[in-house]
């Protein structure tokens, strides 16, 4: 027999319902989980969007060719050579099926952050040379802590060249790295890195991290949904924060238990601490062609840079 209060409530009615804004912590959790879920789904499904000729290349060849190009870009001095490398990489990215839209955040974010880092180098305080724009005239006796400042603080021409070189190098290197990441399945990338000499244990940890990130995200999403299904109307920011902290604690405990289970499953299949991996297949002709082309392009860039200096 159910107690008398059971079911003693009005059925829900949507009419004249006041609009209630979700509290900030709840919005934050919802958005964070949604963004993480989308990012992970993109990670899983995004690779297929690239052109088959590049995405099907052996991961070892991709990593080796890209490493050669990154080394070459790091050695370039002339802005023209760096510009040529940038144009070449953009063309390569487009030919790999990566759209302008996907590249845009990289083009904005990397130059912006690298510019912030290199900004002090544009000033005559760091890089001496012809001043082209005066920022401040502190006078002859001005000091900044233990440092004595020059009478004029200005942006110099050599400083701008240094900053331009740094920004272009950073953008080129980020573009190259992203090209590999966006066109290679994570498992293939990890196994490619492993076969290029990355410690096996590190490779295994990386692969397992990728695997269990999805499991823990699913657990967090389910916990959040379970909480939502029992939430009624407004909740205070304080209660939301408390739930968030408790949820994080619960997720941590679950991940710890899962880690123990995984370790037992590994022991059960004979794992004794020594990581063993499968034999690698030979790199195909397409892989070798990519590595050779990347090295040839790298050498060409370095030689051209040297000649134009």
């Amino acid at each position, binding site marked *: 027999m159910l107690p008398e209060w059971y079911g003693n409530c009005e059925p829900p009615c949507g009419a004249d319902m006041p609009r209630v804004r979700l509290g900030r912590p709840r919005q934050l959790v919802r958005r964070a989980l949604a963004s993480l879920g989308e990012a992970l789904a993109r990670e*899983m499904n995004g690779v297929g969007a690239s052109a088959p000729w590049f995405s099907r290349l052996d991961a070892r060849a991709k990593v080796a060719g890209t490493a050669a190009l990154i080394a070459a870009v790091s050695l370039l001095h002339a802005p023209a050579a760096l510009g040529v490398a940038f144009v070449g990489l953009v063309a390569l990215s487009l030919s790999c099926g990566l759209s302008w839209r996907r590249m845009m955040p990289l083009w904005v974010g990397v130059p912006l952050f690298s510019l912030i880092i290199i900004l002090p180098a544009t000033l005559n305080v760091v890089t001496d040379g012809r001043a082209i724009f005066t920022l401040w005239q502190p006078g002859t006796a001005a000091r900044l802590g233990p440092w004595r400042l020059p009478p004029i603080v200005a942006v110099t021409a050599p400083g701008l060249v240094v900053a331009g070189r740094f920004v272009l190098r950073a953008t080129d290197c980020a573009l190259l790295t992203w090209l590999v990441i966006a066109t290679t399945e*994570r*498992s293939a990338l*990890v*196994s490619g890195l492993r076969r290029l000499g990355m410690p096996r244990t590190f490779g295994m940890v990386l*692969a*397992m991290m*990728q*695997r*269990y990130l*999805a*499991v823990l995200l*699913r657990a967090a999403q389910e916990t959040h949904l379970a909480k939502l299904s029992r939430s009624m109307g407004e909740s205070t920011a304080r209660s939301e924060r408390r739930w968030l902290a408790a949820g994080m604690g619960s997720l941590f405990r679950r991940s710890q238990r*899962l880690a123990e*289970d*995984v370790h*037992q*499953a*590994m*022991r*059960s*299949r*004979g*794992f*004794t601490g020594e990581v*063993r*991996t*499968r*034999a690698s297949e030979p790199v195909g002709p397409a892989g070798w062609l990519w590595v050779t082309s990347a090295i040839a392009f790298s050498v060409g860039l370095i030689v051209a840079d040297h000649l134009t200096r």
Partner: protein
Amino acid sequence: MRDLIFEVAHVFFTYPGGSVALCDVSFSVRAGERIAILGANGSGKSTLLHLLDGLHFADCGSVRAFGVTLSEESLETPPFSREFRRNVSFLFQNSDAQLFCARVDEELAFGPLQLRLSDADVERRVTDVLALLRIEHLCERPPQMLSAGEQKKVALASLLTCGPRVLLLDEPSAGLDPRTREWLAEFLDLLHRNGVTLVIASHDLDFVAQTTDRAIVLAEDHSAVRDCATAEALADAELLASVNLISAARVAARR
């Protein structure tokens, strides 16, 4: 005796937090048997399988496998530890714990690699087992992209690549749809007909009726209260009700 695989004698086990899991459990398992460990939630079924697989060790009493007492020392000794892991495999209830590699084919290769088989042997075993379970199409997929049924098949495949003579299965039918459950029962029957010994912990009575011949029933006080033919155990409504495997209403209905 050569066909004796496990001998469990007066085993007691308590988890570090103080919760008792097993209380004076004794039985033996012979080669080719199909045994069900029956019991309600928390009766100690999974713990018993952990003990049989050498993942936990008895506080009191002994668990012997192939004539050797299972202990941390014996499972660190190379010839025995490798042969034990080659012969005994454990299917975990939680496939997320069992499938820890980034791809299905890597998962299948994990066991044979630990057994230090040659590269050609590892590849052959992976290909053969993928074909045996008809999951070739899942070969390059990451485990998190598989359905529960596919995960269970891959988990089972990851054990079969070691070629075990004994399979310990923890709630193998939990969370499976009827078709996958039926497939699993038929596949376990195929393994048994090929000489594989099966020890299945479950409270799915229909499934154990289909897949096992002998039952060891654990009570809620963590002791073994019956060791008999599965059909006999399942026919005893009083016994099943006393260990919380069927409800009192079902006992009344059986009468």
